[in-house]
């Protein structure tokens, strides 16, 4: 039993073989960095950018994900986490190798257009999302840096972490920034700090409040056109519509596989759960969509999910199915494994991963832009936090039905004012529908607000008093 109250499972010989493959994938991807840039270059970067040292410890996330499971589920989790870690390695590699074409993009502005223009995307919030999964306290020094510069403590800790990285001089300077008014006012405003600190030109996309409907699509496709013209003026990137078509087709293909995975996950018992699902989506639909890697990931994940389905499900004993609403608990990724082991809870879906991205019609530049406009506007979390509250609730209750959820755990991140302001309605709507609801009080990126142990206590109290569950 570890400090996170999760058990390591004694591996079988087959498990050990698959573990080797997962670790091999991770090590070979990390080894590419010193091989390509030279060990001294990497040491210099690790000194200048301390977050790189945290990313290099990605094996800790892999260990947690793999050693707590067995059989095909262990194999698939290992594949998922190591593949995503390798993807991050590729992004970091490009960040250092191509500074002249690097464009920072905000996390809910998927970078297909940048790929279509031959630019190199770097998602500013990636570090604030990934690094705490590896080391829970990662963001705290950056949160403190932002607050000591006058950012109020109540602002969401994810943009504060991103601002802190820039304020401490640890954000590599890009050629330009492409951001938007998503996902919240804090996130939107944080880019004035990034713009001032990095001293690079910045383009801001404006997503309408009412984004469902042709009027919004027309408006936002126009915004994308303006962004392309602006990028052509301020970066070496040039739009190549054939390349853009390839990017969109790869996104569509990955999306198709991902949808098949979700269809399987909807079955009881679930043939896949946990990190591999949300990390895969975050990586290949948000941070680097439209790449061959994403297609490979979801094709493989589909095949593995089918295999687990044939073997009778991912969890040895699935007793409950749960939606984790809001983004996953970054400071406590072990929550998934803990819930599985302690009560047989399969955490199947979260706000970031619930994917309703439409397919992109690649017939012409205009249809691609309109498709991308829908993808951005209807993207995960963007559609929940920017529009009216119906968006938030209708999606959640639809997924509860589709995945036969027994309960909802709301990861009640205190810095997310958008969702905090819906908690009253949320309780009443769940009560009306008879859906048990746990609102976990915590902070997305700061363990000093609520520790992982406290999160666990909240979940235990809920499971044992509301769900009348007994530990496995």
């Amino acid at each position: 039993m570890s400090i996170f109250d999760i058990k390591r499972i004694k591996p079988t010989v087959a498990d050990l073989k698959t573990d080797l493959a997962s670790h091999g994938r991770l090590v070979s991807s990390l080894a590419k960095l010193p091989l390509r840039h030279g060990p001294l270059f990497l040491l210099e970067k690790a000194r200048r950018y301390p977050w790189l040292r945290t990313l290099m410890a990605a094996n800790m996330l892999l260990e947690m994900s793999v050693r707590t499971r067995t059989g095909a589920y262990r194999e698939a989790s290992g594949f998922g986490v190591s593949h995503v870690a390798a993807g991050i390695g590729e992004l970091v590699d490009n960040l250092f190798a191509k500074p002249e074409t690097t464009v920072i993009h905000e996390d809910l502005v998927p970078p297909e257009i940048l790929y279509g223009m031959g630019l190199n995307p770097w998602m500013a919030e990636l570090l604030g999302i990934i690094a705490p999964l590896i080391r829970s306290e990662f963001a705290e020094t950056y949160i403190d840096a932002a607050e000591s510069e006058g950012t109020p403590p109540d602002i969401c800790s994810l943009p504060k972490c991103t601002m802190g990285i820039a304020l401490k001089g640890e954000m590599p300077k890009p050629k330009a920034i492409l951001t938007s008014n998503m996902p919240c006012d804090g996130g939107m405003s944080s880019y004035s700090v990034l713009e001032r600190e990095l001293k690079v030109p910045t383009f801001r996309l404006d997503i309408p409040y009412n984004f469902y409907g042709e009027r919004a699509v027309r408006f936002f496709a126009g915004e994308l056109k303006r962004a392309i013209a602006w990028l052509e003026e301020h970066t070496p990137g040039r739009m190549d519509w054939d390349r853009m078509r390839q990017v969109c087709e790869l996104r569509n293909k990955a999306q198709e596989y991902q949808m098949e995975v979700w269809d399987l996950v909807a079955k009881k018992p679930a043939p896949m759960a946990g990190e591999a699902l949300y990390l895969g989506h975050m990586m290949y639909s948000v941070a680097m969509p439209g790449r061959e890697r994403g297609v490979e990931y979801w094709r493989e994940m589909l095949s593995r999910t089918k295999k687990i389905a044939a073997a009778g499900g991912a969890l040895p004993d699935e007793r409950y199915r749960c939606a984790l609403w809001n983004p996953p608990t970054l400071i406590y990724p072990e929550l998934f494994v803990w819930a599985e082991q302690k009560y047989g809870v399969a955490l199947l879906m979260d706000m970031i991963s619930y994917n309703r991205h439409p397919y992109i019609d690649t017939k012409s530049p205009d249809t691609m832009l309109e498709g991308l406009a829908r993808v951005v506007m209807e993207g995960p979390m963007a559609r929940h936090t920017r529009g009216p509250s119906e968006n938030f609730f209708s999606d959640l209750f639809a997924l509860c039905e589709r995945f036969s959820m027994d309960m909802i755990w709301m990861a009640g991140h205190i810095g997310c004012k958008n969702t905090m302001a819906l908690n009253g309605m949320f309780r009443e709507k769940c009560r009306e529908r008879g859906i048990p609801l746990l609102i976990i009080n915590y902070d997305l990126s700061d363990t000093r607000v609520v520790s992982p142990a406290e999160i666990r206590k909240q979940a235990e109290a809920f499971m044992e008093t509301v769900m009348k569950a007994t530990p496995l």
Partner: protein
Amino acid sequence: MKQPAGIPTFFKNLVEEPLNALVEKAQDAGQRSIGYTCSYVPRPLLDVEGIFGVRLRAPGVSGTPMSDTYLSNVICSVTRSIMELALEGAFSSLGGWVFASSCDHMRRLYDNLDYLEPLDFVHILDVPHKRGEAATAWMKEELEMLAEKLAEHFGVDTGKEALARSIKEHNRLLAILRDLDKLRRLDAPPLSGAQYQMLMVAATSSPRDAIIGPLENLYKELASSTDGIDDYRARLLLAGSNCDDPGYIRVIESTGGLVVGDRTCTGSIPALQPVSEEGGDPLLALARHSLDNISCPRMMEEFDARAREILEAVKLTRADGVVLETMKFCDTWGVEASPFVSVLREQGIPVLRLEREYAMSSEGQLQTRVQAFLESMGR
């Protein structure tokens, strides 16, 4: 520092209730009132014959226990306070609400009020976060939709001519408020910052047609008054979030710092610019006026313009220093305030940053902070 006695209690009474006596009188006369929550809602559209707009405030709110249950206690207290009074029934005589998607807090206020206290008429304007041709066209369409909905629901005329008349009257109101504001630039102004704020609040929370006359009469009296304020220690510019409580400014001024200008969404800068009456397209004029004249940090790409505007306001009002007040939990001001402080200090302008809640509290603490600020300026 003295507060001149020239402002009739008539105005004071108007700001003490969420819906004042002039609103009640107009309602009794058969006019329908529409509450609005944000400066991005163009008031001339709500002030056509048969209806009138009232900016929602929460004077006298003492706590927000009911709204905290729904909105939580990490949401800006402007929205929580308005919601609290709404749940107490203070706005039940209104004929409708019009909201703007201006910030996360206002949007969620709309969601919660629509869920808990739905009125017959509810609308939210989708306000762009940028300026420019496309944004103006979008905003104009938004106003078209609202105009149609108002006409249909209330049976009022929101056609071009009716709107042109409304804009003309609105400009009359803005003109008198500008004239009153200009009096504050005198060496010995005949009204204090708190008193001016009271007039601004009275103007936005009363039926327009009932308030223009009293304001014009007051201006005539003040313009010829010889009872000016000449015992202040420093001239201050107030900048920052929504500040519709004259009491807040009164506390600042009790220390001897005279507030000679207010760059807030409820103050005189820059929202008192007239709406264009040219071009024959009133909705386009209103769309432009909203996007170009309400200088809220929810607008992206405008940080430099906002900073420039504060620097210009300092010059215009001959302010010795700036009090930057931001509403607690306001994300946009919260993030932007620090860079503003840096910009002002780089220009050698003394600045005091204050975080506040909507309802006045900790008066002594506020006085101490302002006194220390004045002393740091050598005043």
